[in-house]
């Protein structure tokens, strides 16, 4: 028996019943695409088309089409990669860590957040392939041994760790997401009115029939997957941070990078989830499932991680001074006052100051403010990676080789490609799969819905101090 305190805000409003949940969520999947969806999808595909042209051109001519120079040999490609991987942290964080912490508000957003994660990781992977220059040799990054050359991959290399980390993360995230989808796919199958969709959703539902024994195993699997994914999420951005931190470059080599990158990743990932969910909520009329309570909880996580990132910035800056190492100090002063001061300013404003507005309850619960800040945060997080990568490189130990990086149209076009890919995939997902985890929301309805459902309890409004439910 579970008891829910009356101080908790309901997470499902509008007096929904279980059947309402099924209908509300399945409607999008079963109906014809809406006009706004078609417009958005067309735009995304067009953007993807332009992007694919840029990517093809980049591969054909070589990465010389980018604005890289001898000093700044890594710029937008890796910035975009880290940015997307970071965004790709929220989904698994929501489904894994919040599951372990038994946060019920997770249930309405985890499906879409996980899907978003997978697409973001794919976008990130596209930049790995892009910056290789010769993507047809991508398998050289795998430990394939002497048939392919005379050496194995170097297991000392953080880039090899990255290959393992990103591919493991992508695989496990897809598996986690898909396992969670199975019961909902079975719901769609059981409701299907035409043969084709019954066949397609039936195949995808893996024959699920919701038996108690299967649910028991399903829950065990979810819990262990959550337990495995939690350190996995941390490891991914940790290893991404080590791409930089294992080096000797001032501004890159600093021990705080692993947890600080993870915090930043969660920060930007939650912001992206908010950006997407606020739109989805509006377009699909899901206000009763993604309530202000959800938005507020997400905003709190954003404030927390934004503040952790802020403390990390200050720590880095302080220790650079404290270390007494001239190059360290210079790297940080150059960030703030050198030729890239504007990117540093953008990073500080967007990442450290803007989320502090969420200390005000009215801002936390304002859809418009949340939407704007969620975008601002992701702009800031892009600049953070740009600051770390480009400003640390552009003035190295040899002043004669100091340089400035300016992006070309192909830097921008290849970045646009990832947006095209991301939105195309997300729109396909939102049309053909249930955007909210129906089974999980049903499971919390009694304890977290605004009205108790079911004949047994009967009474519509519970006025006592405690809402007692028995699930």
């Amino acid at each position, binding site marked *: 028996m579970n008891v829910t305190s009356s*101080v908790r805000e309901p997470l499902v409003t509008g007096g929904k019943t279980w059947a309402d949940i099924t209908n509300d969520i399945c409607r999008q999947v079963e109906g014809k695409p809406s006009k706004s969806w078609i417009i958005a999808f067309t735009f995304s595909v067009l953007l993807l088309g332009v992007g694919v042209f840029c990517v093809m051109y980049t591969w054909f001519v070589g990465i010389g089409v980018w604005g890289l120079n001898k000093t700044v040999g890594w710029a937008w490609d890796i910035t975009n990669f880290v940015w997307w991987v970071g965004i790709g942290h929220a989904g698994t964080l929501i489904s894994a860590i919040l599951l*372990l912490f038994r946060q019920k508000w997770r249930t309405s957003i985890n499906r879409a957040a996980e899907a978003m994660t997978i697409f973001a990781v794919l976008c990130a992977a596209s930049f790995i392939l892009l910056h290789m220059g010769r993507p047809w040799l991508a398998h050289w990054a795998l430990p394939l041994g002497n048939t392919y050359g005379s050496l194995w991959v170097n297991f000392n290399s953080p880039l090899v760790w990255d290959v393992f980390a990103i591919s493991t993360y992508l695989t496990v995230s897809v598996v986690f997401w898909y396992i969670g989808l199975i019961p909902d796919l079975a719901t769609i199958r059981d409701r299907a009115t035409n043969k084709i969709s019954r066949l397609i959703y039936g195949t995808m539902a893996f024959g699920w029939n919701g038996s108690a024994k299967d649910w028991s195993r399903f829950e065990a699997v979810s819990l262990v997957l959550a337990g495995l994914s939690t350190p996995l999420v941390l490891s991914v951005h940790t290893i991404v941070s080590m791409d930089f931190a294992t080096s000797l470059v001032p501004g890159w080599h600093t*021990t705080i990078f*692993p947890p600080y990158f993870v915090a930043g990743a969660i920060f930007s990932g939650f912001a992206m989830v908010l950006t997407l969910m606020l739109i989805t909520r509006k377009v699909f009329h899901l206000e009763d499932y993604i309530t202000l309570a959800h938005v507020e909880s997400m905003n709190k996580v954003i404030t927390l991680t934004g503040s952790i990132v802020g403390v990390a910035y200050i720590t880095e800056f302080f*220790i650079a001074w*404290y270390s*007494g190492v001239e190059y360290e100090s210079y790297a940080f002063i150059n960030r703030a006052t050198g030729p890239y001061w504007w990117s540093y300013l953008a990073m500080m404003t967007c990442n450290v100051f803007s989320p502090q507005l969420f200390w005000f309850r009215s801002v936390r619960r304002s859809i418009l403010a949340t939407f704007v800040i969620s975008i601002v945060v992701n702009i800031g997080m892009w600049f953070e990676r740009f600051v770390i990568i480009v400003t640390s490189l552009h003035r190295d130990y040899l002043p004669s080789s100091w340089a400035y990086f300016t992006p070309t149209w192909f830097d921008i076009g290849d970045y646009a490609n990832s947006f095209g890919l991301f939105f195309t995939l997300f729109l396909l997902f939102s049309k053909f799969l249930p955007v909210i985890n129906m089974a999980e929301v049903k499971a919390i309805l009694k304890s977290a819905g605004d009205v108790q459902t079911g004949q047994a309890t009967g009474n519509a409004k519970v006025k006592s101090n405690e809402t007692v439910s028995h699930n």
Partner: protein
Amino acid sequence: MGSHSTVHYNLDEKYDFTPEAKKRVLMWLFIGLAMFGVGLAMLIMGGGDHGHEVAHGATAGHGGAHAPTWTARLYAVLWHNALFFTGISLIGVFFVSIQYVAWAGWSVTIKRIPEAFGAFLPFSFVAMLVIFLLGGHDIFHWTHADAVAHDEVLQGKSAFLNTPFFLVRMVLFFGLWYFIWRIIRGYSAKEDLEGGLTYYNKTITVSAVFLIIFGVSTSMVAWDWTMSINPHWYSTLFGWYHFASWWVSGIATIVLTVLLLKEKGLLSFVNQNHLHDLGKFMFAFSVFWTYLWVSQFLLIYYANIPEEIIYFKERMHLYDGHYRGLFFFNIIINFLFPFLFLMTRDAKRQTILLKIAAIAIIIGHWLDFYLMIMPGVTKGTSGFGFLEFGTVTVFASAFIYVISTQISKLGLLAKNHPMLQESLHHDI
């Protein structure tokens, strides 16, 4: 629906810190003092010749760069314990604040335990202040004006590492922590009497403020109190690593206290599910500590910059490998042991197994702090003897005395907490 059996708990349950119990704790305090005295005498006499000679050398003007004397070991041992118990007390306040800010419901039944921990802060403050004033020169190389005069790097840091500013920070942080703890504890007491949501909501606000202060201050005290022992060494992660070690020790102490009270037949409302959750916390944050340990070690090992690698050299190779065994034992007891031992569900639900894990973790992290502090102060002259065991017995007894007194002041259950029913019916 239907009928469900509700167990009725005594909502006014109190812990009585009986005179016999007090006597027993005080007896341990005196045993500790006696051991400390014996240890000190042995140290002075045992290291006599050598120590005297070096001390003489030091007075001749080689401040700082000399080999450590017996006083170095004495103050390092005292500092180590004061720091460790400061951490545990502080984590108690931190734990409670987190529960409030996160709207946690499950933890209400155990809330009064960590809530009492803050009471030790003034005592550990006095301990740290006195140890610093008496032994600061032995512990902190940067306090020697003549050493700084010949050291450009230390001169660069002197704006931050100087005695007045150091003391200001110490007083300020302890003051803020204690002040906020008093507010939280006061609200908690008033909630028992008056009920309602007022104090609950107020505590959430105060907790949020505390978390901000905590977030900044834990890193800064880690730099001050531990990192600056090796004043040339720096690591940006150190503050968080230091916090993680405190955090795990604090959680383990909460678990141990809960279990000990349960053994006395109290805390009947704390069921297996609460213990399970506490066990998960110990497990998860042991892994988290390991994560930070590995992150710091791997990056420093990989880059191999002399200024940085010296920290691990000292612990792995220097002083004839004096700390080598402890270095590896640290990973075994703080990672491998809790990881493998607490992995199963049963281990987190059975009192005896949980108790073993909690004790091991407390010892493990006490050793972790030992390893952070000793090499920098005592070089290869540290050890484990009457002095070390006596000191820890004194600090632990004092901590137990203060905490027991504090726990006995309020009921064991926050009976008017709005999430009380959630916690009483906690079932996972």
